[in-house]
């Protein structure tokens, strides 16, 4: 096995171009498990952990650009205020050790339906920036993930960053697992209120081969919510929202849970997270006064 440790993104891209079959390694929390299970035997390993460009995040024009190598621990510590949905999701990932090592880039690289970093990105229409020696391109996260453990990365490309709009309203993330920590998601739900455009973004995780948005549910609830007065969500409306969310899921029966349970749980999570975000919006006042979520 050949092992590279490029000191810059440019060098990394060159190595990747020269070795299109080379496997990048960031935190290694997915890849090392696969190697230990003998599911992969990389010929070439490209360690991205010392590429400075991938370890940074920056802000411009209401968008945060997060380097693919930023760990969950840092997302929680540094971005909970501006990207609350992603931060809440990050808190549910693994254990402190995993959150210290694991990265958003790795989550996208693995493209598991159970990746907890993905739904909060999909719910807000985030984009992935990928690059090769021929240049960079961006595409929506929802399109980047093309199937179970499949993504749109070409052989010579690396994931460089994710572009996530700063929250324009409360966001929530909820995850079902049969243990109270360190558990792979049975189903997850992400919701993001946009108090400016008066729209709602959603995404379902672990409920289908690719991350899904519940478009009908989003449109339904955006129309039903009383954006001006912030009156509480009527129970039947929340219920209907939950039904519409559950309706788009195409879950499976597996060792972690049944399809019927997953669908049911999605409805409950949708209903509850809607209420939490809406209550928070109410507490924070009218859209004009929205100062960003509390961290």
């Amino acid at each position, binding site marked *: 096995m050949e092992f590279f440790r490029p000191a810059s993104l440019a060098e990394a891209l060159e190595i990747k171009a020269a070795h299109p079959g080379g496997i990048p390694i960031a935190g290694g929390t997915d890849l090392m498990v696969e190697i230990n299970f003998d599911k992969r035997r990389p010929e070439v390993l490209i360690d991205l952990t010392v590429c400075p460009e991938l370890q940074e995040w920056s802000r411009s024009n209401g968008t945060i650009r997060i380097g693919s190598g930023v760990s969950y621990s840092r997302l929680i510590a540094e971005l909970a205020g501006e990207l609350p949905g992603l931060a809440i999701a990050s808190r549910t990932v693994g254990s402190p050790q995993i959150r210290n090592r694991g990265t958003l880039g790795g989550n996208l690289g693995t493209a598991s339906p159970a990746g907890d970093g993905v739904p909060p990105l999909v719910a807000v229409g985030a984009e992935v920036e990928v690059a090769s020696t021929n240049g960079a391109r961006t595409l929506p996260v929802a399109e980047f993930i093309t199937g179970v453990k499949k993504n749109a990365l070409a052989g010579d490309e690396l994931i460089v960053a994710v572009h996530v709009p700063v929250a324009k309203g409360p966001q929530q993330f909820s995850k*079902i*697992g049969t243990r*109270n920590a360190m558990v792979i998601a049975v189903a997850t739900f992400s919701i993001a209120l946009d108090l400016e455009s008066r729209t709602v973004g959603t995404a379902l995780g672990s409920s289908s081969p690719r991350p899904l948005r519940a478009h009908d549910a989003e449109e339904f609830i955006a129309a039903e919510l009383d954006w001006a007065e912030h009156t509480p969500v009527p129970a039947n409306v929340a219920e209907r929202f939950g039904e519409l969310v559950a309706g788009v899921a195409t879950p499976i029966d597996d060792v972690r*849970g049944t399809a019927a349970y997953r669908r049911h749980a999605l409805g409950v999570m949708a209903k509850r997270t809607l209420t939490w975000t809406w209550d928070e919006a109410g507490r924070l006042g009218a859209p004009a006064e929205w100062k960003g979520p509390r961290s």
Partner: protein
Amino acid sequence: MSTHTTAPPKTRPPGTPETTGMDAPTKDGVGSSARRPDGVPKVTGDFAYSSDLWAEGMLWGATVRSPHPRARIVSIDISKALALPGVWAVLTHEDVPGRKTYGLELPDQPVLAWDQVRYEGEAVVIIAAEHPETARRAADRVTIVYEELDPITDPEAALEVGTDALHPGGNLVRHVPIRSGDQDATADVVVTGDYATRMQDQAFLGPESGLAVPDGEGGVDLYVATQWMHVDLGQLAGSLGLTEDRVRITLAGVGGAFGAREDLSMQIHCCMLALHTNRPVKMMYSREESFYGHVHRHPARMHYEHGATKAGDLVYVKAKIVLDGGAYASSSTAVVSNAACFAAGPYNVPNTTIDGYVAYTNNPPCGAMRGFGSVQVCFAYESQMDKLADALGMDPVDLRIRNAMTTGSRLPTGQKVEGPAPVKELLESIRAMPLPPATPAGPLDLTRYPGGVSNTTHGEGVRRGIGYGVGFKNIAYSEGFDDYSTARVKLWVSGGEPIVEVHTAAAEVGQGIVTVQMQIARTELGVDQVVVLPADTQVGSAGSTSASRQTSMTGGAVRRACIAVRMRVLQKVVGTLTDDPGDLSLNGGKIVSDSLGMTLDLAEVIGAGSFEETYEYHHRKTSPLDPETGQGDAHVAFAFSAHRAVCDVDLELGLVKVVELATAQDVGKAINPQAVEGQIEGGSAQGLGLAVMEEIQIKDGKIMNPSFTDYLIPTILDMPPMQIDIMELGDPDSEYGVKGVGEPPAISSTPAIVAALRDASGKPLARIPVRPDDFLDFISSGDD
């Protein structure tokens, strides 16, 4: 010596190190929470586990396993594997030098399969190569042609007439009937129930591993993580075709056991490869392989009927228990005996009709796991007691107390309980403990809710429940087995200081037996410096680190050997100080005359000589169970514990948070109170796991979740704080009054938790582990 000290409940974390009422002035002696020597190295990562073993020039072993739960082996072609550079040996059943099968009770398991395989993961071929990766690649090149057969995976179906026999004697491994009292008794109130428990894994952290080193003369030394070296030795020597003196076993660092290391795993394979190649060979299972490499807890299906008077006195218990033994016998015959003997619980039941069965199937083999047959039935009989209380309109704790066993009670087997049996006292203790606060006040703390940091509820749908469970089990081996323990103790002087050397074959599997041996030697000989030699087969058997027996058995042997040494030392000074040896004691490195108040320096008395004694400690004799009535004094002693669980359930999502566990347990005497607390907390956690998450999921004989990704064990956020009442009621029949500690917490915690979940949800929850779907009416949870 044994005092009744019912300590006030203690809340975790324990405060300062405590001493009990015992007059043990020697520092770190019996009754103190002496520090364990392996504690710091384990935390810092310096401790050498069996997987860390290394020898100059060693080869690495690998195992080729069956992918099928049931198949005929048509052919085995090893030529391509042998041709791979770096491969030193590829061995099959033809290369087994001695007996081709092994087993704890019945030698029914092939060392390497020949004509057929009976479970997924059964070993067929073993390989030694210069690098572990080479060994794995060679494994891929072994071609085994199988003819697949339909696996028999349902234990009840396996017992039906007409089902294929998986072994020459048929599929019934053992039937234990127990009949007591009136078989036609009737009662005012009758409750019935069908209960099921699933396959639990011991989930030790250190996978099976060891190192075999050939001695160049046809013999072999094996360093291995195991639970009972001498029983390994017999099986090992038999299959290697060697006399026992040519096989020497030394205990390597054990990363947990819980019963999973009672059976052999890689021992014979590793030695075969080492003897064949004449090189040291190391074997180490991966985590996934480990799930196939050891036995698990028997799944059980249990049908129960309880009859009681209107006043709440138990009239009869009828129970039919079917255990899935899996492909090979392992310790199934003893597990089913326990299940049957303790099927009615720690209660006075005048009339019983109990049938325990264990069947061969093509599921993974099942055998020993903490609680050993008592766990499954405790879940069933405690569920029944709650159901009965409900039918009677009685408080469930009152019903238990009303029927509680006491000293002098008789088991369904007719055996009289002779030691303390504080069932009532345990229940009263936990009932009196304060309950945790209802709703947490203050800012949102997700860790307090079902779902934890996964953020599934901020209080919505959450309801609290409280449940109780009490259980018991035998200490040491039963049914006439003489599982004695041997200790050799030597006292001499080194550097002017007296020093004690203790040598036993007791396996330290993490429970603290090394510390216990040191504490006992310090107390009995009044010497600070105690060295416990590595456990090996150069000393007599210590019996297994199983059945909660090691502190009483090996502890007993060490104490008696120390006393014998002490007698000899004191003999030496009788006449100098006093004529009465009874007036003399050993303390703080001195020989003390209690009446004269005079002391002699122990080191001076010992001088250049040494005192050495070996003691073989046997427990009281037991007898087999009558094969038709199940009557007999089969057990040595009994240990009791009770739990109260407080649980929150998210009724809409079916997620669970165990809020608190309170427990009371009679340990006879806490040799090391902190270690006792550790056992109680750990055992309770394992019981919690079985209640709400731990299950090896099997489909058509195949394990669906052989990894810690999907075989979930409780984390620190699942395990609640505990209130612990350690009772020291002193068993008159054991040294220091000690009783076993390790297993009871894993027995009574599970039913208490499930009872609390029922209390919160009103759901029947008759199968464990409980799954989220079980709380939701509209989802059928599929199978039983």
